[in-house]
């Protein structure tokens, strides 16, 4: 991997040198700024958690970006991020990042400071084909807030589901090629980067399972990760077209599920049964489709995906594996309404069906989630108000997010927001109900 990164950097450097030479040959003054096309975003955000009555986080983020046009058809994009979190509560100490491949890991420079090469790719146009190669984000799907098709890249759950997806999605070393074939665009993706969801270590504010206190007779084996460059890589194909006003895609992904499957066993150790958890990543197939179209002031959009080999935890502690294999069908339909000036209303209905009819499932076979979004802007779009609610109907859990953003200048904005999380503490979202918070932030673009 390091060899490939080095080759990539050398390629970029050579092309850049070529551009400089071209400028010299054309007797044009060399303009480094025009070549690098640099920009920087500087952010600050602090959050106060009500239950703990303390500052939950104070983060400073520095995001430099370069878009270098090496030729008319080749662009080199570099995005990095320096991140400092002063309170050290979201990820106390140095995060282990065991789920992430060596080359995609953040560079941890202490308990409170880290740097990350977020994206590093070449965007190349070869005749009618667009090829993107390098570290990048590949996003599929039409849904907001919950993910059915957006499974190509894993996520960092440092702030659970509450952070911007753009910031929490983990870019991967991958290749993407969009090839037009008679009115259809075929997108092929190849992802040799074996990185998976980065889950917070125990002690983190949003660490999973802290509400479920385990007994002393529980042992966790090390995480079993795939490590073969070719054989364990993910591949995908998306066919998209625009037909009679409809945006349609058909998607297939052969991938490792980004959440490990926690197999359980109960060996006797010193004649005492010890519940042993052995987490490992397993292969899955995803087949799905998406659609969207506009009708007057309404936009209809949706997606559906079927996972062939999903593993679901059981509620039977005597089950030899603790998980059962099943198909999983997930679908979402969303309707956006923009008939009120400067306002968008959006509602989504998600359904999630575990097709295995076993009676020992640790969840309902059929689950429903819904989301509502209200977004309105004022004063020539200098003031935005967003209100989002997501609720799982079966478990009665969910969260509500509100945010007011004000543009002080073209490149300077401030915001105030907050979240309320509700549900039982033994549920997926409800486990964080104590983390209701209010936050204040600022972003400067240069």
């Amino acid at each position, binding site marked *: 991997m390091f060899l490939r990164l080095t080759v990539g950097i050398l390629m970029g450097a050579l092309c850049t040198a070529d551009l400089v030479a071209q400028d010299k040959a054309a007797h044009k003054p060399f303009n480094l700024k025009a070549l690098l096309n640099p920009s920087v975003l500087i952010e600050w955000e602090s959050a106060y958690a009500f239950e703990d009555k303390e500052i939950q986080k104070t983060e400073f983020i520095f995001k430099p970006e370069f878009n270098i046009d090496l030729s008319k058809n080749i*662009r080199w994009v570099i995005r990095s991020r320096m991140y400092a979190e002063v309170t050290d509560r979201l990820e106390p100490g140095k995060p282990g990042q065991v789920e992430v491949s060596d080359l995609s890991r953040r560079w941890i420079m202490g308990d409170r400071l880290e740097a990350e090469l977020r994206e590093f790719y070449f965007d190349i146009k070869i005749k009618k084909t667009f090829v993107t190669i390098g570290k990048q984000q590949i996003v599929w799907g039409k849904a907001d807030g919950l993910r059915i098709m957006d499974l190509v890249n894993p996520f960092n759950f440092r702030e659970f589901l509450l952070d911007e997806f753009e910031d929490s999605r983990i870019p991967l070393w991958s290749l993407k090629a969009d090839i037009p074939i008679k009115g259809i665009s075929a997108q092929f993706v190849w992802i040799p980067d074996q990185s998976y969801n980065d889950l917070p270590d125990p002690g983190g504010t949003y660490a999973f399972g802290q509400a479920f206190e385990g007994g002393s007779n529980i042992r966790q084996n090390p995480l079993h990760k795939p490590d073969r460059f070719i054989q364990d890589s993910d591949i995908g194909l998306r066919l*998209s077209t625009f037909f009679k006003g409809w945006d349609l895609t058909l998607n297939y992904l052969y991938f490792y599920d980004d959440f490990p499957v926690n197999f359980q066993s109960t060996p006797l150790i010193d004649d005492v049964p010890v519940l042993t958890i052995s987490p490992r990543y397993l292969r899955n197939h995803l087949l799905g489709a998406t659609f969207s179209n*506009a*009708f007057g002031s309404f936009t209809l959009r949706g997606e559906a995906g079927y996972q062939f080999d999903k593993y679901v935890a059981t509620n039977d502690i005597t089950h030899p594996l603790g998980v059962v294999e099943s198909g999983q069908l997930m679908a979402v339909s969303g309707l956006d309404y923009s008939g009120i000036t400067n306002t968008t209303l959006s509602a989504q209905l998600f359904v999630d069906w575990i097709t295995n009819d076993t009676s020992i499932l640790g969840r309902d076979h059929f689950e429903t989630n819904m989301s509502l979004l209200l977004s309105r802007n004022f004063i*020539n779009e200098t003031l935005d108000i967003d209100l989002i609610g997501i609720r799982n109907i079966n478990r009665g859990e969910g969260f509500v997010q509100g945010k007011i953003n004000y543009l002080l200048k073209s490149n300077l904005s401030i915001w105030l927001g907050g979240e309320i999380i509700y549900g039982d503490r033994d549920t997926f979202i409800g486990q964080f109900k104590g983390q209701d918070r209010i936050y204040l932030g600022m972003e400067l673009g240069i």
Partner: protein
Amino acid sequence: MKTIKLIFYAGLIGLWTTQAFAQALPSAKEIINKVNARNEGPYVTQEFTMELTDRRGKKQLRKTVSYRKDYEGQRKSVLFFSSPTNVKGTGFLTFDYHDADKDDDQWLYLPALRKTRRISAANRGDYFLGTDLTYEDIKKGTKISREDYTFKTLKKEQVDGKQCYLVEAIPVNDKIAKELKHSKVHFYIDPKTWISLKNEYWDISGNPLKTTEIEALVLIDNIWTVQKINAVNHKTGHRSILTFSGSDYKTELEDDLFVEQTLLRGR
């Protein structure tokens, strides 16, 4: 008897004058047809800067690059924001169909979501990204929708020293008026270029809404090209100055510039 003759001749003169004036003023239909027949070239690349100023003098500056290409029965255009940094990469793609009964198709790419969203084209009277021009204004450019209005030529009037035809446009029905969010427009059309140099709008209640004026117009590759638009909203005091540069009618644009994948690439 003399009085009767005087009235008769006065009547004749009046009739002649009215007919002569009417002959001097072409019909609104003729004027609007000439506006819409004006050559804009089959494709164009332009950069434009938006300077937005609120009533307290607070300014915002945004820079964009736009591309437009005409096809049989439709016009495709795409616009990318190049600055400020927090909106950089935002892309807006439109398929504008000549068939008035067919809704346009529009997509918005937001870099923060990394997704292209299909958006409704029905709200054409909404303001475009915080400017004082509506989506309809941006889409139509210097053209005027024939289907949306009934027109009437009122008189000749000077705008910046140029004799223009003042054409009044009234939306054909309440539904269109609500969509466009105005009840009347006065177009001041320059017969030399067949471009409206000044547009005055009245809101649904009949109050002055906004005025847009073209402050610079140049001939590039034999095509009259707008260089600067000044739009003032009389209700909010907000002002938008749009400055166009780098207009290129010669470089042919490839079809794959107007597809979703290009929105994601940001160029």
